[in-house]
Each structure stands twice: as C-alpha cells, then as structure tokens.
C-alpha cells in the first residue's frame, strides 16, 4: 500500500493549530474543574473563555483542510459557509451560557452564603498566566505566516486570558483577606465580557453568511490600490467580501465601446497583476468590463 505524501506546508499549519487547540482545551478543562473544586467563580469563567480559543482552532483546521483539498471530491457548496455556521452555532450557545452564568453568579452573590475561594485557584491561575505568556510570545515570534488563522484574534484571546488569570490570582488573595464579594464581582464582569464577545462572533458570522461587504476601511484600501494600479480606469462597481480568510474582490470597470478587446484584456491583466503585487492580504480578484454609454 503506497503512503499518501503530505504537503509539508499543510502539515506545519495543522501541527501549529493543533498545538493551540490542545493548549486551549487543556486549560479550559483545568480552569473549569479547579474553579469548581476551589470555589473560585473567576477561575471557572476564565475556563469558559478558553472555549473561544478552541472554537477558533477548530474553524482554522476546517479552513486549512479546505485550502488543501487533495483527494477530496469537488464540493457542490461554498465550504467557508460551513465554517461560519459552526462559528454562529457555537457562539450562540456560548452567548446563552455566559448570559446564564452572569445571572447565576449574580443570584449567588445576593442570595447564597458567600465563601472565599481556595488558594489552589491562585496556583492554577498562576500556571495559566505563565502558559498564556509563553504562548503569546510563541504566537508573536515563533510562528511563520499562517493566513488561515486570524492572528489578531488569537493574540487578543491570549492577552485576555492572561489578564483574566492575573485577575483571578488577585481576587483569590483579596477574597481570602476579607473581600469575599470581589470574586463574585470579577466573575460577573468576566461573564458579561464573554457574552459581549460571543455576540461579536455572532455578528461576524451572520455578516459572512449574508455575504456582507467588508468594513469601509478594507473597501477603501482596495479602491485606493486599484486607483494606484490604473488611475484612468472608471470603476462602475466594487464588491469586497470575505470568503473565510480570503478576500474576494469583484470589480466591474467601464471601458469605451470602441476599444479593441485585445486592449481591454491587457487592461484587465494589468489591474490583476498590479493588484497582486500591491495588496498583500490573501485575495482573489475578478474583473468584468462594461461599455461606456
């Protein structure tokens, strides 16, 4: 039986994402379990936050698989929509759970007996903070270019995770010194923040499923580069959408009706080649022509 040869670039990308996946999964379990055992609400909520990292890793693995179809049959649907549905579903569930957590912890703070968290929570939070710091540095300096992963999002999650862990350590110390409510207050704040963060993902995936246009800055940047490449070209329509990690640019340009098609084809070629040189974000560009009336 012949061994299927793996694409080394794909293998590197998958291994990198798996490392992130395992990190977030392990610390999610660690923080939630020890949060329950030690009674630290803040540690428990930070464990839930790690699920965002798990979600992004799963979506990125789907994207990498899609970018390297290999022996797979041709799909008869747009696979980036599947990633968005996974993101939408998971984010909706997370938003409901974190909103419920917000009310449950609030109820506990006002109506149940208050008790400080165990010191174990501080030790677990310290390990988590150090691990997050290590991963933050690795993501920033140790990873080659990975267009399939949204590095800003991963960095943001790691930064926030580090801050949540530090906050947990501080709340444990303060709670054990007499300020028991600090743990509850910080957990409520963190749960509220998580709910808002889930809503952000819901909005982004909803916009993607609706084939919404990119933000004004991106569209403006695309238009600017187009003008730099060919300042004389009249743009009738410009559509910029995200398809997973790839930007899809559709430009309909206006040309004189009497222009020979040979010249028109050269114009289109120049626009596409010039764009590929100047626009470094992964993209696919399609140019259509319409006659000037």
């Amino acid at each position, binding site marked *: 039986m012949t061994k299927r040869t793996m694409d080394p670039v794909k293998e590197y990308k998958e291994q990198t994402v798996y490392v992130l996946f395992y990190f977030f999964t392990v610390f999610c379990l660690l923080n939630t379990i020890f949060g329950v055992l030690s009674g630290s609400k803040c540690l428990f909520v930070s464990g839930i936050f790690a699920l965002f990292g798990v979600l992004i890793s799963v979506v990125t693995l789907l994207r990498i698989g899609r970018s390297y179809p290999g022996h797979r049959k*041709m799909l*008869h*649907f*747009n696979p980036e*929509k*599947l990633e968005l*549905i996974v993101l939408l*579903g998971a984010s*909706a569930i997370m938003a409901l759970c974190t909103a419920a957590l917000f009310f449950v912890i609030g109820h506990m703070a006002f109506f149940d007996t208050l008790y400080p968290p165990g010191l174990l929570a501080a030790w677990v939070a310290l390990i988590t903070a150090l691990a997050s710091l290590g991963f933050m540095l690795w993501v920033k300096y140790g990873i080659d270019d990975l267009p399939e992963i949204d590095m800003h999002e991963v960095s943001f999650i790691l930064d926030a995770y580090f801050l949540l862990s530090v906050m947990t350590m501080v709340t444990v110390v303060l709670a054990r010194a007499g300020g028991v409510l600090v743990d509850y207050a910080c957990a409520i704040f963190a749960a509220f923040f998580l709910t808002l963060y889930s809503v952000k993902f819901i909005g982004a995936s*909803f916009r993607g*499923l*609706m*084939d*919404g*246009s990119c933000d004004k800055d991106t569209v403006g940047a695309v238009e600017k580069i187009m003008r730099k490449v060919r300042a004389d070209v009249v743009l009738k329509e410009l*559509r910029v*959408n995200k398809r997973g990690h790839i930007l*899809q640019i*559709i430009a*309909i340009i206006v*040309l*004189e*009706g*009497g*222009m*020979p*098609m*040979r010249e*028109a*084809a050269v114009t*289109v*070629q120049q626009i596409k080649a010039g764009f590929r040189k100047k626009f470094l974000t992964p993209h696919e560009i*399609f*140019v*259509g*022509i*319409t*006659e000037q009336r």
Partner: protein
Amino acid sequence: MTEKPMCPSHDLQVCRVCSKKILGWTVLGNTFLAGIKIAGGVLTNSSGLLADGFQSISCVATSILIMVSLVFSQRSSDERFPYGYAKIEFIAALSAFSILIGIGLFVVMSNLLGIMRRDFIQPDIMALPVVLVSTLLTYMIYRYNFCAGTKLDSPGMVANGCHAGADLFSSGAVIVAIIVAQFGPSFAVFDKIAALIVGVIIIKDSLGHWKGNLQIILDQVSGPEFQRSITQVIAATAPEYRMVHLKYRRVGKSFWVGVGLLCPVKGTVSQNAEHMEQFRAALVAARPEISAVDFFIETA
C-alpha cells in the same frame, strides 16, 4: 404537509399584508397559550401540559425572530449587503428549526429519564379543557401561518407553521395522556410515553426542513451538472468563448453566478458586451434558478 389555503385570494400584496397580521396574532396567541398551559400544568400536575407550555414560549421566540427577518428580507441590496437581504429569512428559519430540534431532544431525554425513574404523576382531568382550548387556537395559528408561508413561498412563515404544527402534536399527545391516565394510577405512565412520542415526531419533522434551509445557506447547487449546463449554454451561444471558472452564491431562493470567461481578443468591447447580454439571456432561460450573472474577463 399540504393544506387547503385559508382564503381564496392569490394576490401577493394581499397575502403580504395578511402575513404581517398573522405574525402579530401568532406572537399574542402563543403568549396567551404559554400562560394558560403553564398555569394549567402546575395546577393539575400535568407534566405534558407544562412541557407544552414551554414549547409555546419557544413559539413566541421564533415568531418574533421570523417577524424581524421578514422585515429585513424585503430590503433591496445596498453597500453593506450587495447581494441583498433575502437570505436572512433562511438563517432565521434554520435557527427556528434548530430550537425546535433542541426542544424535541429535551422532551425525549427528560421523559425517558422520567420513565426510567418511574416518576409518574396522575394529571387531573381539569387539564383537559385547557388543552382542548389551546389545541383549537394552535390549529388556527398553524393553518394561517402555513397558508401565508406557501402562498408567499416564505421559509420563515413555513417554519413558524411547522412550529405550531409540532405544538399541535404535543397537545394531541397530552389529551390522550390525560384521558388514559384517568383509568388509574398505573396508567399515569402514558403521560410520559405520549410526550416521548411527541418529541420524536418533532425531531423527525424538523430535520427535513432544517436540512433544506442549511443547503440554501451553504449555497448548495444540484451537482456537477450545474456547472456543466452553464458551460454548454456558453459554448452553444458563442463557441469562441470558453468558461474558465464559476463562482456562485444564493440570493434567497435564486442564484447569483460569476462566470470567468476566456474571451477572444478580436472584436471590440461593444461586441463583447452584446455577447455577454446573449449569454445572460440564455443562462436565465436554461436555468431559471439563476437571477443575476456577472462575467469576468480571464486571460490565457
């Protein structure tokens, strides 16, 4: 499910006005039903009626979701959504069916656990009039939503109708359970068995619609013959052009396609534009599901 329409009108404008009223009445009706079912369930110890009441709450939530999506789906395309808002109804319908499947699973699991724990409570006969009144109201909600949904070809209203239909099934099961349970305490188990069967029916009915809406959101085409037929139309209309690639996405129930063409370098832009119009007309005639086409110039 095929049902006779609730009114003989086929005027779409009349149906649109009616559908807005139906949704408003559906929200009010389901809120009232949720209230009487939950109160009735608590007072008469009927777990089936109580579960039915919670399902009515989910009906309220999905009706509001569908109402909002219908308002947006009428909007034409703009800068933010250049392919229009028609898909929003399918996303709302998918969410509604996901909630319904979740409810079905919850009903199945909770009643299975109840049967395993032998947690049987004999419901009071006074629960019966509450269920009968709610069944009548639910039937009206179901019929009107289905009528509007099928006439307007609206997946959102069909989803709403299905939700009410599922509510009908569960109410029917509760009626049977209450009547049978009156024969003695040993028959109280029928309350849970009926609810279990209802849960399975809800899941089964919802899965088909869920899959249909998912296929539309994923921009699924019928298969390789979709691309093949477009290539054949272009080759038949002007053989000097060659299709290089095909992009597509759903715009509601129809498709937008982007066709990458390898164009001949002879002729002018004006002549090329004429060919594009011919292609457009031929494609729309050959594949009526295509509503918008863009052609892109590719170079060898």
